[in-house]
Each structure stands twice: as C-alpha cells, then as structure tokens.
C-alpha cells in the first residue's frame, strides 16, 4: 500500500548493497524489485567501493537519501566488518541501519558483527525461497522504519 502511494523523488529510499559476488547482487536486486517498493538499489562491488560510496553519500547529505545497507562479510580488500566500523565511526552515517548478510553461519562471527554495530545478522541460507524471503523482509522492515523516522524528523 505504501508502494502505491505516489512518492516524490526526495522520499525515495536507497538501499546500498555491498557484496563482491555479482550473481548474489543480482539475486538480491531481483528479490527487492519483486517487492515493488519505491526504493533504489546501489551496488558496491567490494568493501573499499562500499566505504567510498557511503562516505560520499553521507557527505552529500540530502539526495540520495540512504535508508539501508545490506553488507556481505567476506570480501577481498576491506571486509564487511571494516565497512561496518567505518559506517559507525562516521557521524552522518551512525544511525544508518546495516544488515549483515553472510554465508558464514557462526556464532562467533555473528557476535563480532553485532558488537561492531550491525543492526541485524542474516545468513545466506541454503533454501533459496527462504533466503529470498529473508532479504525481502529485511528490506521491507528497515526501509519502513527509516521512512517513518525521516517523516517524523522532517515533520518536526
């Protein structure tokens, strides 16, 4: 229902997808697009690219307005935790929801990710239907939360 509401470009949500696997990026994009949300998906091909893009977007301020980061952990160069640490260290990006998505199903890694500041930790599970549902749920939840927060803050 939210999707059907005509949105101004300013209100469009932006999801940043940081993952070195192009196929997986394609899958996530497909999954999010299947939700028909008023969102734009930006893809970063590795950790360094992710950090660069996020800093730049944070510096610009207004548009594009970032609402969610989907972050892979195991990447060449800067890994997911490093990206996460950079996001949390930046004043303008501090409140940005970051969902860690990884193939590593490991309590220790999960603990470290949450300690570094991940908003949630999602596994790239075997069952593809399940995995797609998880991506969709995460995207839906966090963009909604973000939109409501920003609506409230702009109203105030």
């Amino acid at each position, binding site marked *: 229902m939210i999707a059907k509401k005509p949105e101004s470009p300013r209100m469009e949500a932006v999801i940043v997808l940081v993952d070195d*696997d192009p*196929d*997986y990026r*394609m*899958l996530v994009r*497909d*999954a999010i697009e*299947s939700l028909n949300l008023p969102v734009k998906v930006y893809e970063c091909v590795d950790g360094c690219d992710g950090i660069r893009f996020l800093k730049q977007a944070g510096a610009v301020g207004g548009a594009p307005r970032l609402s969610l980061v989907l972050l892979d952990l*195991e990447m060449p160069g800067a890994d997911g935790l490093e990206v996460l640490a950079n996001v949390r260290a930046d004043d303008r990006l501090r409140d940005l929801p970051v969902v860690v998505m990884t*193939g*590593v199903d490991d309590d220790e890694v999960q603990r470290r990710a949450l300690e570094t500041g991940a908003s949630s930790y999602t596994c*790239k599970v*075997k069952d*593809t*239907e399940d*995995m*797609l549902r998880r991506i969709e749920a995460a995207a839906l939840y966090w963009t909604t939360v973000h939109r409501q927060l920003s609506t409230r803050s702009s109203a105030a």
Partner: protein
Amino acid sequence: MLMRDQDNSTPAVPLHHRLQFRVLLLVLAMVVLTVGTSNWMLKVLIEKQLDAALERETVRLGEYLAEEFRQALMMRNSAAIEVHIEAAASEPGLAFLEVENRLGAVVARRINNAELHRHFEAVFSDEAKQSALARSRPVPLGWKRTPEARILRMPILSPSRGIAGPDLLGHVLFVHVDPVHRATVEKMRALAFGVVLVACLISVPLTTVLMRRLMRPLRRILRAVTLLASGSELPHLPVKRVDELGLLARSVAETASSLAHARADLMRANATLERDVEARTAELHAANRRLEQEIETKNEFLRTVSHDLNAPLRNIAGMTTMLQRRFGEALPDEVRHRLDRIAANVRLESSMLDDLLELSRIRTRPGEREKVDLGELVRGVVGALEHELAERSIVCDIAAALPVIDVERNLARQVFLNLIDNAAKYMGNRPVRRITVSHVVEGQWLKVSVADTGPGIAESDRRRVFQVFRRGSEAGSSGVPGRGIGLASVKAVVEHWGGEITLESVVGEGSTFTVSIPVGRIVSADLGPASSRTAA
C-alpha cells in the same frame, strides 16, 4: 679421664656404650682383681709364717718360764716365785702371767696389760681353762684388737725320776703378744692397698692413651663411612697403618673411590639422558606443533572450501528459484522439469558440503565440555527417534546404569544419534528387531556399545563405513536414504575424545559398534560391573 669425642660428625654413642669406656672399665677390673688377689695370697702366706713363728716363740717362752718356776715350786718357796715373776714380767711381749700350783690355784700373778687380762677373765672360765688350754699349745686369745695374742698354759713338771715319770708341779699360764707381728701385718695391708692404687693409677691413663691411639683412626674411618653415603669429601684415613685398622681404612678408601667413580658415571649418564630426553622432547614438541599446524591448516582449508563451494551453489539455487518464480508459468514443462532437477542436485551437493563443514567443526570448534549423563542422553536420542523406531517395530534396550562422562554434549548426542539412527535405518525386515546400548569398563577404556540385530556388515565393507561419503555396498542399493557422513563424524568425534570406534559384525546376525573412551572421562558411575548390562 675419658676423652670426649672432639668431632661432632660421628654419631654420638652413649657413654656407657663407648668402646673406650668399656675397655677402661675392663682393664681396671683386671688390674684390681689380679693385683688384689696376688697381694691377698701373699698376705695370707706371710701371716701364716708369722703366726707359726709367734707360736714357736710362745712355746719357747712357756718352756723357759716353766724352767724358771720349777725350782721355786718344788721348794714351795713363794718368795722365790715372786722373784721369778718379777724377772719374767720384764720379758717383752708378756701381757700377763699366772703361776698355778699342782691343784690349779693361782699362787702368783703379774699383769702387764690389764685390758687383755680382763678379756681373758671374761672369756675363759675355769672349765674352758681346763679343756681348751689343757693341751699345752698356744691358743689365740680371740680378741679383735690384738688378734696376734696367744695364750698358753704350760705344765711345770719335776725332773724325771724313774719309771713313774715326772710329777706335775703346777702350771704357768700367760698371754704372749708380739707388737712387731702386728705392725708387719698392718704394713703389708697398707702396702697391698698401695700397690693396687698405683696399678690403677698407672693403668687408667695408659689404657686411655692406648685406646685413643686406636680410637682416633677408628673414628676417622667411622666418619668416612658415614660420609660415603652423602658423597662428600672424605677425611684423611690411616691407610698406612699395618694393623687391622689400616686394612679397614684401605678397604674403606677403596670402596669410597669406586663409589665416587660409580657416582660420576651415573651423573654423566644422567646428564646424557637428560640431554637426550630434552632433545627428544623438543623434537616431539616440534613434531606436535607441525602436526597441530597441519591439522589447523587442513581444517581451515576444509572450512574455506566448504564455504567457497557453497557460494556459487547458493547462487545457482537462487537463480533457479528466481527463474521459476518470475517465469514459472511461461516456461515450457520441459524447462521447468530441468530447473527442478538443477535445484535438486544443488540441494544434494549443498548438503554434502554442509556435512563436510560439520565434520571439520568437530575438531575446530567442538563446544564446551560438561558432565553428560550418558543414560539420559541415549534415552533422549531414542525419544527423538521414537517415531522411526515405532514405525519399524524396533525395541531399544538401554542399560540402566550408564556412566556420567565429561564430554561435549552436542558431540555425544551426534555420536549416539548417528549410531542408533544407523542401526534403525539399516535394520531392514529382520525377524528380531532390537537395538541394545550397554557399557563395560575394560582396563583404561570405557566401552559403550550399540548393538543391533540387523543384517550385519560384510567384512569388505567394515572399513569403508567410517569413510566420508562411503557407504556399505548393500546400503547404496537397499534404498535407505543417507549420504554416508554419520559414521565418519562419529569416528571423528570419538577420536577427538582420544578414543576409537570399532565394529564387530556377523553377516545375518547383527552388528555392534563400540565406542571406547579413556576411563579418565568418567565423572561418576554406579559401576557395578555385573549390573552394567541390564538388557539380556
């Protein structure tokens, strides 16, 4: 007198047990005994001689006195008697003198020593005079203060006249004392005492000195022997002596030197051994480190491979799903069917990778060790498999008193879940369908067995069943679902515990998997060996 032990290193011996003291006592006793005895014998001999001389003299005096008074008594001239008495009284050694007439009445008396006379009057009655003194021989007066006093009653006879023999005119009774005799005896006694004393005085220092000359080397040897055990420097030993002490010293010195050699050899051997042990330990440590590194590398590799192999599979699966989702209805059946097959194959591959990952985790991240009640755990596993067991009408016998062991709960569960699940899966259509879990302690091992009454495993398959993705040749064709990871993971877990898993099987009768764990893992157990099997 006795020399005290100067060095304190020799063990203290009580004074009365010391050799020196004992020898001194012995020597003193010997000296006193021999000198004393000889002196006493000498004294007895001399006294006898003196007594005999005194008696002879007494008799001579008696004969002289009798001669003196004979004339006067024959004349019955008392004045003459008085004159003679006066003359006789001056005789030296005469204590007192009585002259009796023929009837025994005293006609004249002279007393030089009143004490002796009083004693005589008290001791000798008239009868005694008659009996004891009748034989005209000198008799001891028996007074302690003058033991040498002799009393004699000498008859005075008239000169012989024909066959009738001499007439008895009377008696002269006197006590004769010899002061020289007494002095001589006393001198001798003093002399004897003096000789004994001198002998003692000479023998004590002499013995002490002699004993010291013997004891000093002996003590040194004794100290050396005491020091032998501790291996410290020995004192100088009297090895040059030619007597037995020298012999002893030499043999002690020899023993000491051979002991020192042996000790040195031992220390050298010890040092070598220590060096060897250190070297071996270092080698062992190095080998261990290498092995640990290898294991770690292998596990890391396994983990990475499993993970990296998963990513493309996940993508394939994702794409397939996405294709089906988006274009499902538009796709021809043939394409849809192939997409399904792709998805199924990906799922299979993916689960095999999961198993590999699981297997590598047993070593790299086994979990927390805790006290696991094996009985409870096995009953839990059987409970979880209840449905399958009931479906196949399989009876489970679990020993009542399984022990509590110190292991990782998740791994223990994995072991028994796999073993029981396997036993159930491969049971087939057997007439008796039973799974028995029991335990026994044998030496250093706690052996927990899972026995089934299944078809058994062929000899040729028994090693394969523990390998990853290998199943018994029967299993593959028997239509039993399974990927062949279970027993491999059981083996990995049991080996991780420092134990081993063994399989005994008789084709057509059943199989028994035995998990052997070091007994050190047992926390507590009601180990009645006889009651360890409740299921017959």
